């Protein structure tokens, strides 16, 4: 059986990959994908804790998180599509109107 720590390492690795993606990538779609990667990292974390402590709370949380990830992807994609259609922008460095 795979030890519990490995799942935690995997989850933290995925979380950091997503965080670096949000910080560094320029394309808004990739940025949304990075947010999804972070969400999936947390899903792995919760299900691992649930599996190794024989408690069902974590699985319930996982279902809520999956629904929430879908909702957030819907909101984010609709905003990005609106941005592209009205202003023809898709890169983060173009989003520079408000500053100061």
């Amino acid at each position, binding site marked *: 059986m795979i030890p519990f720590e490995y799942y935690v390492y995997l989850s933290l690795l995925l979380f950091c990959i997503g965080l670096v993606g949000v910080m560094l990538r320029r394309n808004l779609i990739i940025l949304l994908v990075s947010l999804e990667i972070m969400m999936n990292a947390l899903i792995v974390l919760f299900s691992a804790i649930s599996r190794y402590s024989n408690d069902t*709370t974590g699985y*319930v*949380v996982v279902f809520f998180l999956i629904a*929430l990830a879908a909702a*957030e992807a819907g909101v984010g994609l609709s*905003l*990005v599509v609106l941005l592209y259609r*009205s*202003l023809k922008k898709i890169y983060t460095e173009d989003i520079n109107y*408000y500053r100061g």
Partner: protein
Amino acid sequence: MVGLNLNVGAFFLELILLVTGLFFFLVDRFISRKSYAFWICLLLCIFSGFIILFIPFGEFTKAFRNDFYSATLKFLLIFGFFFVVILAKEYLVTFRALEYGEFYGLLIFSLFGSFIMLSSQDFLTLFLGLELTSIPIYFLIATNFLYQRRSIEGAIKYFIVGALGSLFFILALGIFYYLSGSLYFDIILTKVAQGDRREEFLAGIVFLLVGFSIKLSLVPFHMWAPDAYEASPVPVTAYLAGFIKFAVLSALIKVLIIAFSPIKDDVGQLLLWVALLSILVGSVLAIIQENLIRLLAYSSIAHMGYALLGLVSGEYVGYGFSIFYGFVYLFMTLGLFSVIIYLYRYNRNILEISNLAGLAKELPLFSFMALIFLFSLAGIPPTAGFMAKFYVFVVLIKGGFLISAVLGLLFSVIGAYPYLRILKVIYMDRPSVSFNRGAFSFLTYLALYISAFLVILLGIYPQPAIEFIQRTLYLYLTFQFLHF
């Protein structure tokens, strides 16, 4: 198997809100006179303000509980929401392209989310309420692109930062779940009270505070606030600045009371520097702003810093004064925004501060109202802003944080400058543009006068409001902890 308590009566108000919100989304297409939504919203506010006094306290499953704290805070929030609805109506009369039932429907969903957040008994419900409070706002900000095409940029910035905040929040949930094996507040409280693994819990609390401070726009995570505020329609800005901050602040206080009260001193130490930095950054950056809304955004950052100062000493009295500060701040902003909406309807350039010059000659009444609210924001007696600051600093000094209190007072002197500069422009400068007067509906005058009255009244005689809040906290704590 523990018996579940399915008391629908405790959940009644939230059901009404949910049904009303869904109703707007269902029927709005088929109704051509769009002003119906406003009247339904207004009736809903009055109705829920009454019914909240009669709703029984009780649990709906173990996740949702209506109790003293949540009922009181819901009542205060409904009071604020009433004014937000009036402001929205006044704005949409001029900006007709936004006048759809969905505008009010999204506002009601957000209100629903904040109610869920305040009544939650476990971290998952709290988190879902927090998300439901903020997700409709992303859309409401983006709607403004019909008048100001750039506003989607503000919405996207807010969305990305908000999503990151919620991810950190879930990370904190994972840590608490690992440490205590549950997400219920009371089980986490007993685990924290046992005293082992204190550092691990504090690490979780740091991530939790990251999530909260992104929603409250505290300093390391404040960059989204001015952009989102400038991008959104003015009533939505009022909602973001006053209402959501107040709701999230009360939820944070609730979490600190019922989940982490054994280590609340350490949490206060964590919050001290965040609060002081928020006050400093908000006050200093407000000085250089030329746009009125951006200035108010930085001032809201600073004011949330003051409100957090009440949590630093870790005494329950200070928590009550923080709630009082949030309440006073809600009404100061709503009043000031109703003045701004009045001006903005007739002159779209009014948001630049230099265009306000000579307003006092043209519109003496509104200038005087602006004077009251700006004095209150600056913290000058006899207004409510002064009393709120006074109580927060008294608790801070009694808790032994003398140097922090002195620093906070110094920063508040810096923070008074931007508001006084606006007043100087309004009262002393030579008029540059002419204002044409327009009609203003009775309800909006009502909102303006009531907020001005409250600001003055709470400044002169704050005792009843303070006692009301403190007694609520006392009763809540008694019922929460004494039955062990």
